């Protein structure tokens, strides 16, 4: 028994709202430090957006998030996730089929990749590794910022001044060239940034696509270069820039986290939705569940997004007006959807027929910069992209347990799918969106349509309905410069604390932001343990 009994109520040291990956990381770190922790999850399974579900019998879908690359290595190590069942399988490269019958492939093997790129451009083949090394250095330059508590610029507190001192020393240590390049990365568009290195259109398009994932930006929008970096920051087993797939689907990441958390004594209750956060005299004191039950705790950590946390679970009058304005202004536009397919056979790409390594990595529908830009133009005015950008995985080629023998599951991440549709709703448009995705993909792999046994279309609206992501934004708020670091989620409140004493934010809406990274969960736990 790690909790204490107060009257006839249990009282925990901490309650964590939401059992997504950040909530679980947060709970695990708190319990590891000796706290009694209760995690409350509305759904019947843990994981939030990090789940595996059997939507079509026998076929396991990573319904929402689908790759592991950002998960912080120190979290994997400190929480001993491999011991709790986490097994990461490397993806072999990226395959970009092109409408003219050619394809661009990048493999794990550097020399093969150079050969592939050389078919398009000698310059780009020569630059490719230099660029990779450059981005590796840049991501190291940023990693330190990600894993620190953002200092508050208006504060003269020793801890904040020390934070700025650390920043200053960090920038100084980078040297001028890298500092300037960091500034450029933070402000330039992915296109402009890549134009400095490469000339091959499909290569630039495929690379810049990682700069737009989850954001309502196009590769030509200033600020998209930063997200490019965000996606370069992945590390698996110490190898930078590896993308991985979790054996058993993304749900096994959540399972491993939950198992680790339980091993430290965390109690996890599923089917326990929160009605509101209880407050008293400007302090969070506990939570009230949908069932009417009330549970008290010394500290509350919400891993839900900032809008849900502050606008749905708390009375506006309990929060300072300018904070509420800040939360309302926080941009959380959903821009992406998922289509998950159960397939009777593998897709057969016209440009590279048959089975092969290209089906064991990421397949990117991003033939040109203009293609991506046009996809964005649709979304700007409230339509889903008629010809969308897609990032596709066929997990069953890497992990056969995901589908019945001989059959396959395909995960298609799709952009752009704006949450706000012009003059219509997602309930009306969901299947039309799914059709647009499949029609587009079938142009490259004509056998696709006949191979579909079952399909699941997940719009941003569905993400909001099913897993509570406001507007279906997968990052709990866009990763743009005005919403990062000491501005995330609201200026003055970037240190995981909130205007309500003892209430903390530990989800992707907090610094350093989204992706299956775990950093907000861990940093918030450290902050909670400090008090």
């Amino acid at each position, binding site marked *: 028994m790690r909790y204490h009994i107060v009257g006839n109520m249990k009282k925990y040291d901490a309650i964590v709202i939401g059992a997504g990956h950040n909530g679980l990381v947060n709970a695990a770190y708190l319990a590891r430090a000796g706290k009694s922790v209760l995690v409350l999850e509305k759904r019947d399974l843990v994981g939030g957006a990090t789940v595996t579900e059997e939507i079509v019998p026998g076929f396991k879908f990573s319904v929402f998030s689908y790759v592991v690359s950002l998960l912080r290595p120190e979290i994997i190590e400190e929480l001993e996730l491999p011991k709790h069942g986490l097994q990461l399988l490397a993806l072999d490269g990226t395959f970009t089929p092109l409408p003219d019958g050619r394809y661009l492939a990048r493999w794990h093997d550097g020399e093969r990749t150079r050969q592939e790129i050389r078919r398009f451009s000698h310059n780009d083949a020569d630059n490719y590794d230099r660029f990779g090394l450059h981005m590796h250095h840049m991501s190291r330059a940023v990693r330190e910022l990600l894993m620190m508590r953002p200092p508050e610029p208006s504060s003269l507190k020793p801890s904040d001044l020390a934070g700025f001192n650390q920043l200053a020393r960090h920038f100084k240590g980078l040297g*001028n060239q890298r*500092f300037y390049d960091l500034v*450029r990365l933070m402000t*330039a568009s992915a296109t*402009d940034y890549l134009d400095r290195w490469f000339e091959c259109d499909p290569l630039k398009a495929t690379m810049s696509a990682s700069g737009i994932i989850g954001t309502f930006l196009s590769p*030509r929008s200033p*600020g998209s270069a930063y997200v490019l970096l965000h996606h370069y920051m992945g590390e698996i087993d110490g190898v930078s820039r590896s993308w991985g797939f979790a054996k058993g689907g993304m749900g096994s990441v959540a399972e491993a986290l939950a198992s680790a958390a339980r091993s430290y004594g965390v109690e996890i209750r599923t089917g326990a939705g929160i009605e509101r956060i209880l407050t008293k005299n400007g302090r969070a004191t506990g939570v009230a569940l949908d069932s009417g039950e009330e549970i008290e705790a010394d500290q509350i950590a919400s891993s839900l997004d900032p809008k849900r946390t502050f606008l749905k679970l708390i009375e506006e009058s309990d929060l300072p007006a*300018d904070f509420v304005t800040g939360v309302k202004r926080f941009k959380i536009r959903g821009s992406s959807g998922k289509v998950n397919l159960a397939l009777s056979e593998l897709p057969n790409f016209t440009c590279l027929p048959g089975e092969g390594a290209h089906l064991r990595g990421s397949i990117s529908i991003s033939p040109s910069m203009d293609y991506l830009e046009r996809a964005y133009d649709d979304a700007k005015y409230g339509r889903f992209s008629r010809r969308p950008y897609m990032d596709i995985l066929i997990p069953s080629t890497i992990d056969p347990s995901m589908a019945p023998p001989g059959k396959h599951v395909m995960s298609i991440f799709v952009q752009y799918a704006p949450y706000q549709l012009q003059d219509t709703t997602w309930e009306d448009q969901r299947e039309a969106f799914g059709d647009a995705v499949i029609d587009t993909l079938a142009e490259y792999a004509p056998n696709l349509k006949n191979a579909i046994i079952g399909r699941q279309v997940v719009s941003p609206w569905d993400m909001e309905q099913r897993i509570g992501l406001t507007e279906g934004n997968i990052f709990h708020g866009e990763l743009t410069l*005005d919403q990062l670091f000491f501005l995330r989620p609201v200026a003055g409140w970037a240190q995981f604390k909130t205007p309500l004493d003892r209430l903390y934010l530990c989800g992707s809406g907090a610094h350093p932001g989204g992706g299956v990274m775990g950093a907000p969960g861990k940093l918030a736990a450290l902050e909670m343990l400090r008090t």
Partner: protein
Amino acid sequence: MAKRDVVVIGGGHNGLTAAAYLARAGKSVVVVEKRDAVGGLAGTYELAPGFRASVGPDLAGLLSAEVIADLELKRHGLEIFPLDPIVSTPEGLTLWRDVANSVEAIRKHSPKDADSYPEFVALVDTLAAFLKPLLTKPAPTPDIQSGADLLELLRLGWGFRRLGKQAMHELLRILPMSLSDFLDEWFENDLVKAALAGPGLEGICLGPRAAGTAALFLYQRLGDNPAIAKNLAASMDAAVRSHGGVVRTGDGVSAILIDEAKLSGRVRGVSLENGETIEATQVLSSVSPRRTFLELLDPVWLGPSFVSEINNIRYRGVTAKLDLALDKLPDGCNGVLHVGPSLDFLERACDAAKYGRASNEPFLRAVVPSLADPSVAPAGKHVMSVLIQYVPVGTSIAAEKVIAALGLTDSVLHQHMWTPSDYEREIGLPDGSLHHGEMALDQLFFMRPVPGWSQYETPVEGLFFGGAGAHPGGGITGVPGRNAAHALVKQRV
């Protein structure tokens, strides 16, 4: 010609400003301007007999008050006419210098926006006041070499702290934002948002949804904007001459000459297109980065990384200008006329430019300089200057379309269109970029013209760079020219 202290390349407003400061500091200066008239974009030309129009955008409200005072430009004939209203639209929205009047005007379109407006203006003024010294002095360098650099940073930090917590947060948040996100936070009415957004998009190949456009919007609010200038180039030219400087027109510089006796090179003057050589101890270029470093210099003196950075500067001019001689003015042509009723309209206008096409439905900003300065047109007649976006370099747009959109079909006597390609060919603006390099976040401040070279020096000893391609950028401010002149004077020869 005898050896000079300084040759200034380019007789645009920055070149003239730099030359005037240098002459005033006792240097013997010669300005070399390729065209027959001085002023570059800030100059004027005869649109038709009796009608004069500006070469570039007419709005001169950003011209630094310090430059005007230091160079005594008013004594030399400069007149500034502030415009009021500051913007008006065909849909009937008019914004005035006076906030209370604007509030009443907005109320007809949205009571909610009318209530938000005063607070919005107050915030913008606060932020602009903080940014002003930052954008009129040389950009602080992150590369701290001396106590002076450190002091400059500390001063900046102090000014920042004095903003107070809330404005401090707002500044950090707003600078990287898009104009549409920024305006959406304050206003609900499409027309109000679009009318306010106009200036923040001038000269850049970005729509209101592009991050960083809020910063350009603040930049355009730094001065007494909008205003029309009379005798702008002429007064600067007179200021140069009054201090003994020489201004030569009709001769272009063909190369910057290097004294090779010194291993790393050092300027020794310039050669002209007519074959003449002008020897000088120092050279200050106010022409574009591309012209200065890639065409007038042998790259061997610059080094590969500098050359590569200069090569990568984005210009992307997208602004065309239509000058009209008008028989009569329709009603309501006061101030800045803005045609572009919503942010989506402005964004759509930019969409075509992304694919290299001219916009089918461009957004227009027009002024009537003859209302402020009747001397530019015969009595009773008028000159109107219309900025048209987005028209990428290499494309054009039919003047009739613009004239029709403005409802002027019956009153046009003469017209002249400047496309970005015309600006490139005649004024030497790379890709027709009015700002000598796109004013996007990654090309501003200590990143301008290229990272590490924001202090007006160049890799070549004795060569200084003070055009709009330098910090703080484009617009008729005079600031790059003045700052470059200061940097030059400071250098020990």
